[in-house]
């Protein structure tokens, strides 16, 4: 080992503070530059005043936050929360079944199945959403097939509905649910299940009383990974949604670009961030941090 490397390592060993700085430094810098700084700028903009024709005047005001209680904004917010929740529940239901099947019955092809789950991510989000537009349009693939088969007389309105948005969201975010659930199910100790069986638990009881509680961490992290981006999603409601499916992400974008009211858009965006932070805190209370906590304990 070259001398300088030896010196560096021993210096780090004797000064644990330095080691922490070297290990965490890049991540902290990254977070500050790309998350905290923009958030700070956003927070500053949210208390500014809009000038003529959408310019920005550096006069401080809380007026933008007063407009948050605007009934239109609240209606859009409630609609977004409802659709994000629905997406999460649907992802959880179908994702759990899929992850369970792969973990339990995947055999030696497990990794292939996981790859298939991730595969769609190799193409652009935009292209995949456009594909859904082609499928769901009034004279798209699905309607045309059903019309040709005589199942339908007139095309079903599928595209530009809330249903289309939810389909798009579930399709896009399902892998975020499957992967943590798979990890949780894969690491499930089979001996515990065997013990439950020995003690007379039926398969349903085993699932309900053993598997489910032990995979709660995976369910929670999967739900967060699906819920948070669904709530702020812009592209999918923009393309698959219609006149009646304005969601919060698009509404905020509208304030910035369509109405050129940056301060109000920033205030709305921060309110959304605050809602997400509250939900994440709730998640930590629910035990989402248990594993992290255990890791900390082990480190000691």
């Amino acid at each position, binding site marked *: 080992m070259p001398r300088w490397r030896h010196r560096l390592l021993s210096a780090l060993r004797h000064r644990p503070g330095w080691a922490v700085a070297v290990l965490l430094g890049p991540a902290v810098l990254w977070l500050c530059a790309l998350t905290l700084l923009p958030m700070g700028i956003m927070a500053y903009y949210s208390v500014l005043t809009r000038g003529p*024709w959408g310019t920005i005047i550096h006069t401080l005001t809380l007026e933008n936050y007063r407009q948050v209680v605007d009934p239109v904004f609240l209606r859009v917010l409630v609609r977004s929360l409802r659709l994000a929740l629905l997406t999460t529940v649907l992802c959880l239901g179908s994702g759990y079944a899929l992850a369970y099947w792969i973990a339990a019955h995947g055999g030696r092809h497990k990794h292939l199945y996981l790859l298939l789950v991730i595969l769609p991510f190799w193409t652009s989000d935009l292209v995949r959403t456009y594909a859904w537009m082609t499928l769901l349009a009034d004279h798209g693939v699905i309607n045309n097939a059903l019309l040709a088969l005589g199942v339908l007389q007139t095309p079903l309105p599928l595209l530009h509905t809330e249903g289309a948005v939810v389909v798009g969201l579930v399709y896009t975010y399902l892998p975020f649910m499957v992967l943590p659930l798979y990890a949780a199910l894969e690491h499930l100790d089979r001996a515990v299940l065997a013990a439950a069986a020995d003690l007379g638990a039926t398969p349903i009881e085993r699932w309900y009383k053993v598997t489910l509680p032990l995979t709660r961490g995976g369910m929670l992290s999967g739900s967060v990974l699906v819920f948070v981006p669904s709530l702020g999603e812009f592209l999918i409601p923009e393309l698959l949604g*219609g006149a009646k499916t304005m969601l919060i992400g698009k509404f905020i974008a509208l304030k910035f670009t369509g109405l050129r009211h940056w301060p109000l858009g920033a205030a709305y965006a921060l309110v959304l961030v605050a809602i997400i932070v509250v939900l994440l805190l709730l998640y930590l209370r629910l035990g989402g941090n248990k594993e992290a906590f255990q890791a900390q304990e082990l480190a000691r």
Partner: protein
Amino acid sequence: MQKHTRTPLDTWVEALFAQRLSRRHFVQRGAALGVATSLLADIVGQYDRAVAAEPGPTPQVLERIKAEGRRLFIYNWEDYVHPQTIPRFEKIYGVKVTYDTFPSNEQLLAKVQAGGAKYDVIFPTHSFLPIYIAQGLLAPLNHEHLPNLVNVFSTFRNTPFDPGNRYAVPYSWGMTGLAYNTKYTRDDPRIGSWALLFESGPQRYSGKLGCTDEREEVIGAALQYLGYNANSRHREELRQAGEVLLRLKAHLKAFYPGAEMRKALITGDVVVAQSWNGEVVKAREKNPAVAWGVPREGGTGWFDTMAIPKAAPHKFTAEVFINYMLRPDVAANNANTTGYATANRVAVEQYVKPQVASNPAIYPPAEALARLTFLETIPDDLLPVYDEIWSRVLGA
């Protein structure tokens, strides 16, 4: 500057900007159009004839383009030039062009206002020009580099939105009216009126109605349906227009940007829509059942321009490009494919395909022209009123 003689077409285009037209003027202009059409017919034969070889760029021009790095960044509407327009420019001038598209004027303005996006040529609509100019977002044009500006209709060369073309050069113009699919509307008595959208729409075509996504034009259509001026500055009239739109909203499929509107009209996903004429012209090529007209209560007119943002890194190259776009053959090629009328007089007279030049959905009869209102810039004190209406309509 080279002078051109006034033709009937000039008089005709002037009608676009006439605020009030007397009955007599009306007839005169109708006659003017008749003359214009026959004039066009005479010139038809010239179209396919080889375009006189334009003298290539001088070494000085090429030298300056090279000094700027032989790059050009263009920000335009989707499907708004002939597919060969940009490759030809790249070849003639040895420039590498980056061509991006934007979906709406608001988006374009927001991007230019934010700075950072270093585009060299942008295509704002006339009513937004005063905003750009007032905020000092555009670089003044050097007319010495734009000798082809004389090809543009004289009416477009001195508009109240940008007097004397100091900052922007007209590209093409169009109309916002009523599109409908005759397969579904058949002989609906409300055809020819905004009532087709606002009255029979909810009953007969619920869920199959569409609107553009340009705020001023959607609100303008509602104002015209109510019998008000599309440029109304009365809060009460605007409030009523907002109510009309909220009622329509329950039956509306979506607010479409241009190309999306075209697709929805072709497939029949949308049966009645407030739409730009050019999208309908292009939709009709695929689906002949799609028709378009200026409603009897009036439609809105607009023209798009080419301008150079103040922060443009390749200003000279941008001017060379604008001058190239003003070449009659280039302008005609663009007009032949986009479905919108070119602002280039020489192009219309000599190069635009006859079936395009005689298409009433592109070059409408004078009486339809007289029903157009050109949208004006929203005064700043009314902006919050428009914002609120639009937020409520979109968010509901």
